[in-house]
């Protein structure tokens, strides 16, 4: 199957002016400017299949937003190839722009002073959505996002979470087939994050849309993404499933036991990471987990035992560190 998004050796280099601190350097820069080439994206390749939801992860400055901007046609690549739904994004053809959407969590697209319903109407005109289709899409989005009451209030009176839901609804009225979501849940409370996540999952399920999602909230990634692409310094560090990511970057698992006799020393079984009130957590190499658990059960009176992978945040952090030291 033809991928919805196809990226090959994508590069973006910015030319930035720089100077030393101080008055002298400031005067010198008037006469002679010094520039430095900064490679924000340095040879990124990946595919996203139709209907696939992919997490695009990386620390600040890794090149995530620059890549999303190239994919949505806002930035011209310095090199490499990009194809989204068969279009070259940098050409910004109307036929292309009508099939995608870009939601940036920190940017506002709705008209501030009027109700969101009027902004929806504006999008109907901009995307030339036939009236019956528009009504169907609007009603569906309003229902899924539970914003029936909110869309009639001026946008400036909405809370951040309410506004973001209205923003997302506006961005999806034209039923885009590819969604670029850049930190869509930033600044939202846990409940709002959860509802928005549920909505994105439901939207992609119903409409078979592909999603490329950047987020610093791993809960977003875990809830939505079958696959993650991890980048740092403009290069791909990892591309695969969350489980594989954990297997590759975190060779340990955590065994937590509740002991009948508190105070027992378990350091012989693995590295103790937490202990107290008879509850002890030890970290062991993944390959030895079953054996260690068996020995523990045989040697001590254990009333409860759990085995867990490390939190995904730790795994990602581990991946970034590995990338930096590689």
């Amino acid at each position, binding site marked *: 199957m033809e991928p919805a998004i196809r990226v090959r050796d994508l590069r973006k280099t910015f030319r930035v002016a720089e100077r030393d601190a101080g008055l002298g350097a400031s005067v010198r820069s008037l006469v002679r400017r010094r520039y430095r080439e900064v490679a924000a994206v340095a040879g990124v390749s990946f595919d996203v299949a139709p209907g696939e939801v992919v997490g695009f992860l990386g620390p600040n400055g890794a090149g995530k937003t620059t890549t999303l901007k190239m994919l949505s046609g*806002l930035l011209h690549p310095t090199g490499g190839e990009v194809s989204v739904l068969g279009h070259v994004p940098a050409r*910004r053809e109307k036929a292309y*722009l009508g099939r995608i*959407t*870009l939601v940036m969590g920190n940017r506002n697209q709705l008209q501030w002073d009027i109700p969101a319903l*009027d902004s929806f109407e*504006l999008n109907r*005109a901009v995307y030339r959505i036939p009236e019956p289709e528009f009504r169907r899409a609007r009603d569906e989005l309003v229902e899924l996002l539970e914003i029936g009451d909110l869309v009639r209030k001026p946008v400036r009176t909405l809370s951040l979470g309410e506004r973001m839901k209205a923003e997302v609804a506006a961005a999806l009225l034209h039923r885009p087939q590819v969604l670029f979501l850049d930190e869509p849940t930033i600044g939202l409370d846990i409940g709002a994050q959860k509802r928005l996540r549920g909505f994105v999952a439901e939207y992609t399920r119903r409409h078979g849309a592909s999603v490329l999602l950047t987020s610093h909230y791993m809960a977003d990634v875990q809830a939505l993404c079958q696959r993650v692409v991890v980048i740092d310094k403009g290069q791909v560090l990892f591309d695969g499933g969350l489980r594989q990511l954990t297997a590759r970057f975190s060779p340990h698992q955590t065994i937590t036991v509740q002991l009948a006799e508190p105070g027992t020393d378990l350091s012989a079984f693995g590295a103790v990471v937490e202990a107290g009130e008879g509850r002890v957590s030890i970290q062991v190499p993944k390959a030895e987990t079953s054996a260690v658990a068996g020995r523990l059960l045989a040697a001590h009176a254990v009333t409860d035992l759990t085995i867990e992978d490390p939190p995904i945040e730790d795994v990602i952090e581990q991946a970034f560190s590995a990338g930096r030291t590689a």
Partner: protein
Amino acid sequence: MSGLASVYRVVAGTAVQTQLQYRTTNYLFMLGMIAEPVVYLVVWQTVADAQGGSVQGITAGDFAAYYIVWTLVRNMNIVFTPYGWEGRIRQGELSGMLVRPVHPLHHDLAYFAGWKVVVVLLWLPIAAVLTLVFRPTFDVSPVEVLVFLVAIWGAYLIRSMLLWVLGMVTFWTTRVSALYELYFTAELLLSGRLLPLVLLPAWAATAADWLPFRYTFGYPIEVLAGDLTTAELWGGLAAQGAWVLAGTAMVAVVWRFGVRRYSAVGN
């Protein structure tokens, strides 16, 4: 309704709704704007009185007519400014506009055109008060009214295009205030905003004929408050048409290079 016409209708409607919410602000803004022509009017009426009733054939009543029509033309001339461009580019609003399948120029033209509906409504009582106080002399034919109704939109389009071109300089540098000031000064002197163009020295009046500014202020005002010949009436509209075309061409060229630059540098 065709796609683009629908965009214009909806955006203009949005502008009317938004600006009606800010009617007090709009009124205060308009009252502040009225101060400018009233100062000019009082000065010129005083000079006319001191010179025995007229200045180069323009009577106090003619001056009153000129500056009262001025207030409407000035309101028609409110368009998206270069200062707005600075914010649009610095805060990344343009990115949102670029991922939509409609050129942002249409949004600005439609929005500010819609705003005019509110502005003209608010202007009517102000015009009535100015008329009662300054007693203008009007001698208007139906053709002049018709040409005026077209000319104020011609003025709107020319100024929109020129300030879009100027605003797009922001693609290259965000520190362009000095350039804007230069433009506004030239416009003040050569458009008929500060004084009727017939009062300019001959060389300046000739220069004004060849520049676009006159067609955004002086010409539409003179259509209603001046004494233009039929040839001047239609010639002015033709010149406006030419400047709209030239402005649109300039917008297209600068936009092309500007967006390329924006796409290279980003925000």
